[in-house]
C-alpha cells in the first residue's frame, strides 16, 4: 500500500514500500492496527482516521455480559505514560454483535476482536459467538488484563492456564479467524508462556499488555486510582515491550507477533518490526494524537524506504541477523 495521507502536521508524503502483512493467515493492507482498549470500538476515530486503510481496529476487550468497569478516578498521568484502571467497561458480546461490529463492517473496516473472561468457558463461548461474523478478521485473546480483582486470575501469568484458554478458543473459533494470545510482561519468563500458547494452537502473539503499576497522591497520601493499582502504558514501557518481542522472536521465529507498547512514531514501530513483529498496534498514543494510527503508518513507510527496504516483510526480525 502506498501512503498519500496528508498528516496533521501538513507534510504530504508518498512512498513505494509494500506494507502488506498478515495476521496469521489473513492478509491486511497495513501493519498498523489500533490497540485494544485504546480506541473503544473504532467509531470515535472516524473523524480522524480512514478506518478501512489501517490494518484493523482491535476492539476493546468484550466479555459475555455488559460490564460497568471500575469506579473513578480511573487514570493517572505518569512520566511518558499513564496508569489506567478502567476495568473492561463494555456493552458485552450482545452489544458488540448488534451495534459495533455491524457499524465497522458497513464501512469495510476490519475488526480484530479482543475477548476476555474470568473462566476458560467464557472465552470459548465468546469465540463461538464470533464465528462467521462479517468483518471479524480474527480474535485477540486477552488473558493478561491487570485490572481484575485477583492477580492470581491473570491467565497469562501461568503457562498452563494460558494454554487452557487458548486451546479452548482455538477449538471452537472460526477456522478462518486467526487467534492471537495477548501476553503480559509481568512474568518471570515470557518465552515459556509464548511457547505454551503457541503449542496450544495460538496463530500469533500480541505483546505486550500493560504493566501493573501504582501511583500515590502526595496530598491525600492515598492511591490515586479507584482500583488502587492499574495498568501502565505509553512510551515509558516501550523498552520492556521491545525486549519481550525480541526474546520471543528469538525463541519462536515462526510465531507471528503483533507488537505493542508505547509506539508513538514510525521509528518506534520500526523498532518492533526489526525485533520481530510483523504488525504493530498503536495504543496510548491515540489519546495524545487521534490520527496516530495513520501517521505511524506513513512514518513507518518512510522509515523503511529510507533504509532501502522494498517491503515490510523484509524488515521483520532484521535486527536479529
Amino acid at each position: 500500500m502506498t501512503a498519500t495521507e496528508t498528516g496533521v502536521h501538513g507534510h504530504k508524503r508518498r512512498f513505494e514500500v509494500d506494507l502488506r502483512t498478515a495476521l496469521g493467515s489473513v492478509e491486511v493492507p497495513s501493519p498498523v492496527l489500533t490497540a485494544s482498549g485504546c480506541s473503544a470500538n473504532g467509531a470515535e476515530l472516524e473523524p480522524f482516521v480512514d478506518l478501512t486503510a489501517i490494518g484493523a481496529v482491535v476492539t476493546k476487550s468484550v466479555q459475555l455480559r455488559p460490564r460497568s468497569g471500575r469506579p473513578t478516578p480511573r487514570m493517572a498521568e505518569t512520566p511518558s505514560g499513564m496508569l489506567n484502571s478502567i476495568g473492561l467497561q463494555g456493552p458485552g458480546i450482545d452489544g458488540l454483535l448488534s451495534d459495533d461490529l455491524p457499524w465497522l463492517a458497513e464501512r469495510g473496516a476490519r475488526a480484530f476482536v479482543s475477548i476476555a473472561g474470568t473462566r476458560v468457558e467464557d472465552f470459548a463461548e465468546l469465540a463461538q459467538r464470533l464465528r462467521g461474523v462479517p468483518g471479524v478478521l480474527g480474535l485477540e485473546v486477552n488473558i493478561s488484563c491487570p485490572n481484575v480483582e485477583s492477580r492470581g486470575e491473570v491467565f497469562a501469568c501461568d503457562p498452563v492456564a494460558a494454554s487452557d484458554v487458548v486451546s479452548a478458543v482455538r477449538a471452537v473459533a472460526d477456522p478462518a479467524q486467526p487467534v492471537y494470545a495477548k501476553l503480559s510482561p509481568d512474568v518471570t519468563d515470557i518465552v515459556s508462556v509464548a511457547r505454551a500458547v503457541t503449542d496450544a494452537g495460538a496463530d500469533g502473539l500480541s505483546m505486550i499488555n500493560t504493566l501493573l503499576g501504582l501511583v500515590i497522591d502526595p496530598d491525600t497520601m492515598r492511591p490515586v486510582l479507584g482500583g488502587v493499582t492499574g495498568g501502565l502504558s505509553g512510551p515509558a514501557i516501550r523498552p520492556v515491550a521491545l525486549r519481550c518481542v525480541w526474546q520471543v522472536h528469538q525463541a519462536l521465529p515462526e510465531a507471528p507477533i503483533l507488537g505493542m507498547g508505547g509506539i508513538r512514531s514510525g521509528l518506534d514501530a520500526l523498532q518492533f518490526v526489526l525485533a520481530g513483529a510483523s504488525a504493530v498496534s498503536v495504543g496510548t498514543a491515540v489519546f495524545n494524537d487521534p490520527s496516530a494510527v495513520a501517521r505511524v503508518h506513513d512514518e513507518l513507510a518512510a522509515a523503511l524506504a529510507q533504509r532501502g527496504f522494498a517491503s515490510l516483510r523484509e524488515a521483520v526480525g532484521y535486527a536479529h541477523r
Partner: protein
Amino acid sequence: MTGDPAVMAITAALLTRPAPRAAHPPVQRVVEVAGRRPVGAYVELTLAAPEIAERAEPGQFVAFAVGGETSGLLLRRSIAIATAGDGEVSVVVSAAGPGSTWLTERQVGDTVDVVGPLGRRYPMPPRGTPALVVGGGYGSAALLGLTAALRDAGSPVLAVVGAATADRLCSVDELGALAEVVVTTDDGSAGRQGWVTDAVATVIGQVGVVYACGPMGMLRAVADAATAAGLPSYVAVEESMACGIGVCMTCVLPIVGEDGRTRFSRSCTEGPVFGGDRVRFADVGALPWDVVGADAMGVVAP
C-alpha cells in the same frame, strides 16, 4: 428497568432531556495562537481555528496536546470553549499542573495541536424562557456562548458568577454585556460575600431553566436547588479526561439515562453537558450496585 422503587422515583422526577449530539464531527488541527491575555489568575488564549470556530456550539470544548511533539505529558488537556466566531476560538486556562501551565505560557504566533469542537452543547429552552446561568471560577467563561445564544432566542438571562477570591473570577464584564450579573466571592473581595449557591437561592424563583459550569461541588448544589424548585438544569461537568474524544473511558460519571437506568457515561462524548437531575453526584467515585454492568464486577444489591 430494574423495578427498584428508588430507581422508579428518580425516573419519575426527571426534568431534563439528554443533550443532543453535536451537529458536526470534530477536527484535529495545528493552529496558531492569535491572542493571549491574563484574566485575573488565568490566561485567555485566542486561537486562529476557523473550522473549529464555525462548528462550535455552546457547551462544547477543545482538547490540547501539551508540551510539544516529544513531550512526556501524553494526555490531552480538555478545556471549555469560551467564545467562537470570526475564525477564532477562545479558551480560559487555569495553570493547575505542568500541562495547563505549559498552555498558559503559549505566546502569540506559537502553534498548538488542538482537537475540537468536542462533546455536546447546552440544550436550549423554549423561546423566551427566562434563564439563570451560574459560573464558578474559570467555568464562567464557558457560559459566554450560551448566554449570547439565549439572548438571541429571546430569553432574559440572569448570571451568577462566583469564585473563591476576586482574582479567580472571570468573564464578568463579557457576561455583563449580555445579562444581569450578580458576583459573589467566598472572601468578599469582590461582589457579595458568600457562595454562588446563596445568590442562586434568591433568584431561582424568577427563571424557567438553569445552566451551570464550574467545580463539581458547585454543580451539585446548583442542580439540587433547581430540581428542588421544579426547574430543569443543565451542567457542564469538569471531569479529568485522557483523550477527550471518547476512546479512553476514563472520564465516566454515573448518569441516569432516558430509561431510568444508571450507566457510567463518558463526560467527553455523552457530556460534558448533562441534565443536573441525571448526574448522581453523591455516587461519583463509587460503583453503585444499580449501575448497568455492576453485577459483572461482583457488586450486588444490598
